């Protein structure tokens, strides 16, 4: 296998035109790049998994039909595997996970116990209970489903025969995993590499992988390639990514906001919040017996961490008044809110006025059918003239934000552009408090740096920011230790 030249168009509109899509046998290629740029679609094309009816595809200047008919391509498909991006929609809800893990060619694999033990960190009982469920949106958690899909890939890897070649793709395999599990996954992948004469492609935005691989697996330097895909005048290009670039940038990050603790807080959340039959508390460090009151000061950023699937987003939504809690005490801008408050209390005084929230998935948070200019419609206190909109976009879009950009449908933007638009929409409201759920999701390093600069400007203006993110390397550096909280949660009895 060698790098591919891929072009994909839909109804005459070019989607992807990339020469040198990085695939190499016997090499683990880590591919970074902004979300929506075409990394996954290109991988699907190479793996022969795209539905040709709706797209015009050519690979290595061959029509897709010819490409699929090639013997080597049929071999990649038969021997390889693809771990898709959204685990929920890639598992059959009417079949137990155990059955799905042992279906088709996976039934022949014998390494399941080892893989399960590694991915569940020795807790085989917990794994067994999960494998017997029918996967639903909220059970098992996203991280658990992702581990099941990864387990399928490792089982398939174990079936590779000498002389055969497979193409294995892991598309955002660590998005729902916390840092410990992410590291375990990387270690497991590295352990399987020598026995798999395959091309392995790992598509990710999680730059922390760089740190893990360079620190723990430096011996693999010849077997691991870091690449980055980016857009140049509408065409995709691939270049080498320097791990030192990322590591150096992270080490240069400094905490945002003033050093002294301001007297005034903007947001305060008491421990003991209870919502959806789960009880939550905030602590300063793991295992701490004393619960803390989460406090967000004006001009400072507070970082809330917690394990994958614990409920960090649920907590943010509850603070925002979107969930009805069973128990809650929150002070927002001097006003106290409890479970007695009705929706209209939030609507009148909080939403878009005192506080706003940026959601994780820009695809869901924005109206895909709207034009970019429509995204600014209906925002309180914002006059949606063309000048104002372009000025707002300029904060994160640079030269892209010209007049015609306003008339583009949102669905035509890349994932990274959508996430930036998502952020801009909230930031122009200039609320006292900003809640950010995975603000760097889908962004490359350059865009991430811009967002961080924008956060700095917001803090300088006096805003208070509460952020939830799995990019611990970055946010640990941007936040002062006294502003870091850990979320603990447990299920309440009936």
């Amino acid at each position, binding site marked *: 296998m060698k790098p591919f030249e891929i072009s994909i168009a839909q109804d005459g509109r070019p989607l992807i035109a990339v020469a040198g899509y990085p695939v190499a046998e016997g090499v683990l290629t880590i591919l970074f790049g902004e979300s929506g740029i075409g990394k996954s679609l290109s991988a699907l094309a190479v*793996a022969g*998994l795209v539905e040709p009816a709706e797209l015009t595809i050519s690979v290595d200047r061959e029509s897709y039909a010819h490409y699929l008919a090639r013997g080597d391509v049929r071999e990649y*498909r*038969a021997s*390889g*595997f*693809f771990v*898709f991006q*959204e685990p929920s*929609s*890639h*598992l*059959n*809800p*009417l*079949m137990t996970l155990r059955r*799905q893990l042992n*279906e*088709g*060619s*996976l039934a022949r694999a014998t390494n399941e116990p080892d893989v399960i033990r590694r991915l569940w960190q020795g807790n085989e009982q917990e794994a067994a209970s999960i494998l017997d*469920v*029918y996967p*639903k949106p909220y*059970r098992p958690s996203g991280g658990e489903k992702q581990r099941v*899909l990864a387990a*399928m890939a490792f089982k*398939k890897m174990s079936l590779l025969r000498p002389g055969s070649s497979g193409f294995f793709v892991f598309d955002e395999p660590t998005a729902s995993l916390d840092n410990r599990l992410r590291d375990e996954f990387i270690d497991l992948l590295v352990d399987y590499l020598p026995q798999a004469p395959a091309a392995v492609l790992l598509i990710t935005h999680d730059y922390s992988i760089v740190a893990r691989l360079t620190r723990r697996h430096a011996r693999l330097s010849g077997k691991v390639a870091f690449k980055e895909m980016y857009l140049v005048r509408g065409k995709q290009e691939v270049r080498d990514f320097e791990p030192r670039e990322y590591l150096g940038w992270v080490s240069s990050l400094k905490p945002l906001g003033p050093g002294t603790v301001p007297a005034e807080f903007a947001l305060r959340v008491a421990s003991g919040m209870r919502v959806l039959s789960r009880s939550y508390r905030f602590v300063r460090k793991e295992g701490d017996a004393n619960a803390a009151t989460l406090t967000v000061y004006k001009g400072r950023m507070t970082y809330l961490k917690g394990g994958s699937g614990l409920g960090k987003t649920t907590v943010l939504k509850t603070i925002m008044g979107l969930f009805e809690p069973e128990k809650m005490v929150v002070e927002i801008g001097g006003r106290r809110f409890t479970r007695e408050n009705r929706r209209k209390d939030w609507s009148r005084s909080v939403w878009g006025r005192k506080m706003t929230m940026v959601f994780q998935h820009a695809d869901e948070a924005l109206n895909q059918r709207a034009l970019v200019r429509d995204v600014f419609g209906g925002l309180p206190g914002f006059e949606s003239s063309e000048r104002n909109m372009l000025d707002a976009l300029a904060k994160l879009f640079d030269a892209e934000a010209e007049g015609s950009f306003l008339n583009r449908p949102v669905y035509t933007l890349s994932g990274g552009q959508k996430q930036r638009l998502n952020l801009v929409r909230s930031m122009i409201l200039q609320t006292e408090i900003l809640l950010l759920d995975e603000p760097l999701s889908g962004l490359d390093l350059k865009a991430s740096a811009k967002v961080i600069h924008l956060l700095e400007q917001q803090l300088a203006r006096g805003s208070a920011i509460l952020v939830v993110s799995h990019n611990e390397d970055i946010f640990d550096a941007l936040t002062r230790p006294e502003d870091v909280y850990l979320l603990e949660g447990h299920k309440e009895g009936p």
Partner: protein
Amino acid sequence: MTRPPDFLVGLSDSLKGRLVSHAAGVVFVAVALAGFALSFEANAPAESAQERHLESYLELNGVDFGDPLDRALFRESLDRFYPGQAARNDSLLQAIDDARVRRWSGPGLRRGDTNRGFSPALLPEIAWQFAQFLLVYILALLGIYFGAERLGLYRFVKWKQGRESYLGESIRIVREYRHARANSRVRFPKGAVALDILKALGKGILTTLFFSPAYVIAYALKTSVDTSSLPFMILLALVSNGVLIQASNRFFELLVAEDRKGYVRTATVKNLHTSYEWNAKEGVPVRVLYRISQNLGPHVLRHLYENARFQFIPAMKELGSFLVTGLVIIEMALNIQGRLSYNLLQQILFGRYDVACVIIFSIFLAVKGTEVFVDTWHDFERRRYGF
């Protein structure tokens, strides 16, 4: 003694809520229909006033309503006195005729007679008619359920095979012939083209048949077939009014929607069979079209079928309601004596709204019973799959 699985023990909260809602609906409709019936009873004295009004026309000197000339002159007079109200004048003439019939048909048919209207003695007759209606309905519904799944599955496999329509195929054959004729002497493939055109015609006729309202088909066959027989009614309910086509279309669309979902791709990379050729080694066996229980083996279609089937269950409520509509139309339009819907039409046309309300309530119960059954079944399946 083994403990039964959890999903069989007790009712789920959501099902309990739905059953309460259904019960409330039954009570609500019963009260509403009772009120409707009573309000028309309360209007009975007004009807007597109307009777007296009609009697006054019948007493007119020199007008014999049995004489066509007198009737025509009377009608013209009405048009002069009430111009532009043709409908009203027609209705009045009809009402006068009706009053004449009642006058000469004996006291048993006079309005206000104590034997008119609902009485418990009518219940056994209505119950028997309802039982017959229910039998046809249940058999037709079963037929639609299985027929829709099989037809939908057939359409889906054909769609995945990517074959063009019969007409499209015949056009392609003709084009290929023209192209080939330019280079060498070839015979016009009459047989292949004729076959495709016949198939297209047959498909068109079948589509027309499936979409035809039942009364059109029934009247077309009235002189050749006993249109009041039970088997004919079941067949008519199945094939007419577009019910089967719409049901199979719904199932087909569910399969198409499932085909786009991610788990199909996961199944593909696990090397499950993806060929849709009939009876091919890794394809789809034809027996899936006629077997009651399905075993699709290691094929991605198995995933699709199970999910589509699960989602098709709630759709049966809507289809059941539409089927009842179709059956009511069939019985009414064909004037089938002794049937529930025909009885309903009679009661409405003779103004016996209280009896009509009882019949409407029984039809409502048939639909409600279907809803309760489908909700219970769906709940069972949901709990089985951990929802």
